[in-house]
C-alpha cells in the first residue's frame, strides 16, 4: 500500500491557486496533523526501542513545513536538516517508506541505509535531510543553479535552523545566490535553540542584517501561523519564479521536544518549555478553522485520516524484513553494465 496517494489530495489542493480562507487552512491543517502524528508515533517507537540510533523531532514547528511546502510544485527541489521529517512529509513523501526507513527495514525509502537524518526521495525533488548542520544550504544553491541552467522554471528551497546561522556555508551561499540571482528560497526555522544552547549565545548577528548585506530581501514571519507562512512562501516563490533572485524567509517558531529524543533538556527552564508547547500551531489552526465555520467533526476527520495512515504505515513497517547487506555493499557505486 502506498500512503503517498492519499496525501496528494490535500497537497494538490494547496497548490491549486487562490483557495484562500478555510479550504487553504484546512489543507495546511491536514499536513500538520500528519506530521505531528508521525512524530508522536516515532517518539513512542523510539522509547520502545523500535527505532535505532537517534531522532530529532519538529513537534511545534509543523506550520513552517506545511506553509512552505504549500508554495511548491512539480520539479521544485528541497534540501533539509536533521530535523526534517516535517518538510519531507509536507512534500508528500511516502509515509510507509518513511517509517520503514527510520525503523531500519528493507522497504525503507533509502533501504535502511540513511535513517531519520538522511531521508530522501529524488523523484519528489527531496535532496535529503542532512546530518551536518548547514550542509543542505550550498547543496540547494547547486540545485537552484541547475534549475537556472536548464531554464526549467523550478525553484530550490532549503530549510535550516538558527543553529546554522553561524556556519560559513550560509554566508557563502547567500553570496552566491545573490550574485547569480538564483531561484533559491532560504527558509530559516528560528526556534531559538542551537542544539543545546540558546542561539543568543551562539550568533552575534541577525539574519535580516546578513541577508541585507547581500541585498537579499528578508521576511520575518510567525512560524507558528501556517497561513501566514503559506502566504509569505507563495509570495517569495512567485518572486523566485519571476527571476527576481533569492529570498530569505525567517520563521520564528518553537522547539517543543529536546534536541534529540531522550534529551533531558536540563539546559531549559520549565516555563519556557511550557510556553513553547502552548504556542502549538496545530491547536491554533484548529481554533481558526472552527472560527471560520468548519465543523469540529470535519477537523477530527483530518486527524483520524492521518492517524489511520500512520497506523497502517507502522503495521507495514513492523511486518517488513531487514535490509540486505549484500545489496548495500553493491550500492556504493553505480553498477555499470560491462561492455
Amino acid at each position, binding site marked *: 500500500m502506498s500512503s503517498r496517494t492519499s496525501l496528494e489530495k490535500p497537497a494538490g489542493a494547496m497548490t491549486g491557486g487562490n483557495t484562500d480562507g478555510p479550504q487553504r487552512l484546512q489543507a495546511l491543517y491536514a499536513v500538520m496533523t500528519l506530521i505531528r502524528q508521525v512524530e508522536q508515533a516515532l517518539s513512542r517507537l523510539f522509547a520502545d526501542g523500535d527505532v535505532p540510533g537517534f531522532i530529532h523531532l519538529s513537534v511545534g514547528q509543523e506550520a513552517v513545513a506545511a506553509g512552505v511546502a504549500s508554495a511548491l510544485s512539480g520539479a521544485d*527541489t528541497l*534540501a533539509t536538516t536533521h530535523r526534517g521529517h516535517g518538510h519531507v512529509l509536507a512534500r508528500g513523501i511516502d509515509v510507509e517508506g518513511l517509517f520503514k*526507513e527510520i525503523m531500519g527495514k528493507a522497504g*525503507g*525509502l*533509502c*533501504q*535502511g*541505509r*540513511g535513517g531519520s537524518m*538522511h531521508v*530522501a*526521495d*529524488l*523523484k519528489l*525533488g527531496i*535532496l*535529503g535531510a*542532512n*546530518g*551536518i548542520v548547514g*550542509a543542505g*544550504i*550550498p*547543496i*540547494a*544553491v*547547486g*540545485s*537552484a*543553479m*541547475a*534549475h*537556472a*541552467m*536548464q531554464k526549467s522554471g523550478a525553484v*530550490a528551497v532549503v530549510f535550516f535552523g538558527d543553529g546554522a546561522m553561524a556556519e*560559513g*556555508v550560509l554566508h*557563502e*551561499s547567500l*553570496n*552566491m545566490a545573490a*550574485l*547569480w540571482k538564483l531561484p533559491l528560497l532560504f527558509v530559516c526555522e528560528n526556534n531559538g535553540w542551537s542544539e543545546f544552547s540558546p542561539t543568543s549565545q551562539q550568533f552575534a548577528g541577525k539574519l535580516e542584517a546578513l541577508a541585507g548585506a547581500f541585498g537579499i530581501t528578508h521576511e520575518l514571519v510567525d512560524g507558528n501561523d501556517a497561513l501566514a507562512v503559506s502566504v509569505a512562501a507563495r509570495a517569495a516563490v512567485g518572486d523566485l519564479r519571476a527571476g527576481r533572485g533569492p529570498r530569505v524567509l525567517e520563521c520564528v517558531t518553537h522547539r517543543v521536544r529536546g534536541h534529540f529524543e531522550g534529551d533531558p533538556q536540563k539546559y531549559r527552564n520549565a516555563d519556557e518549555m511550557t510556553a513553547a508547547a502552548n504556542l502549538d500551531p496545530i491547536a491554533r489552526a484548529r481554533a481558526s478553522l472552527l472560527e471560520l465555520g468548519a465543523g469540529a467533526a470535519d477537523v477530527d476527520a483530518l486527524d483520524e485520516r492521518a492517524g489511520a495512515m500512520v497506523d497502517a504505515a507502522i503495521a507495514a513497517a513492523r511486518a517488513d524484513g531487514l535490509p540486505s547487506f549484500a545489496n*548495500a555493499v553493491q*550500492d*556504493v*557505486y*553505480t553498477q*555499470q553494465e560491462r561492455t
Partner: protein
Amino acid sequence: MSATEMRYVHAIAQALRDSMDADSDVMLLGEDIAGAGGSFKATRGLLETFGPERVRDTPISEASIVSAAVGAALSGAKPVVEIMFMDFITLAMDALVNQAAKARFMFGGQGSVPMVLRTPHGGGLSAGPQHSQCLEAWLAHVPGLKVVCPSTAQDAYSLLRAAIDDPDPVMFIEHKALYAAKGTVDTDVVAAIGSARIARSGRDVTVVSYGATVAVCLSAAERLALEGIEVEVVDLRTVQPWDRATVLASLARTHRAVIVHEAVQAFGVGAEIAATLADDGFDELDAPVVRVGAPFMPVPFATSLEKAYQVDADAVIAAIRKTLL
C-alpha cells in the same frame, strides 16, 4: 580531429569542450575559470563558446562550490568543479566526504552524483607547503569516491571524458608540473576508469606508479636497461578503484615489486598496494615489496629543499636494486 600533438593542459581543455558539446547538462564551475580561463588555463575559451550559465566563475568559497556541484548533480546537471590547488580541498571535505561520496548509498541507490572535481596536486614549482600537496590517499579512503590521476596528455583527455560520463563522483587529479608536457592525443581513444596501463614492459621488476612519477620511473627504467635490468612500469591511471589484476599479473611475470608515488609514503596509496601484493601476490614474491614516497614532512618551499624532498630516479633505482639483492 583524431591524433594531434598537444600539451596536457590543452588535452584537458579539449575534453571539457568535447564533453560540453556532447551533453548540454555538463557545466563548469570554479574560481577564475570563466573570464580568466583558469589559473592553469585549462578552461580557456569555454566561456565564449558555452556562456556564463555553463561556465561559472565562482567566489572563493570552496566549501560551497563543491557542495553546489553535489546539489546540481542531484538535480540533473553534470557539474565539473575546479579547485585551483588540491590543498584547498581541505575546505570542501564535507561536500566530498559526507555528501558526494555517500548520497548514492545513503539514499538507497535512488540516484547518483555525476560530478567531477578537477584539481592539480604535486610540487616541483616551489609553491610551498600549502600549494604542493598530494592528498589523493585521503580521497581514495572514502567509499563512494573514484580517484583518477592521469600521467599523459592522452589519458588526461580520455579519462576526463570518462570521468564526466561516469555516474558517480570522480576526483580528477592533475599535476601542475605536467600541464606543459606534450603528447599525442587521439580524441577517439576511449579509456576506462579503473584500468592501468603498462607504460614499459620488462621481465625483472614491476614498478607501479601514477601521475607525474610515472615519468620518473620510466627514466629510472631507461638507466637500468643500460645494465641489462628490465623494468616493467605500470601506470595505474586510476587510484580508486585501482587495477589489481594488471598489477598482480605483472608481479606474476617479474616476482618483484616497487611502488612509487610523490605523496608522503606513510599511510599512502603505496601501503594499500603493498599490502595487497603481500597478501594476494604472496606466492609470486621473490623479494619484499619496496615503497618509494616522500618523507613524512610538509612540502618545503626552497628549491634546494624541495628537490631533496621529491622522489627522483635515483630513489627509484635504489629501491629497485633492493628488490634484486
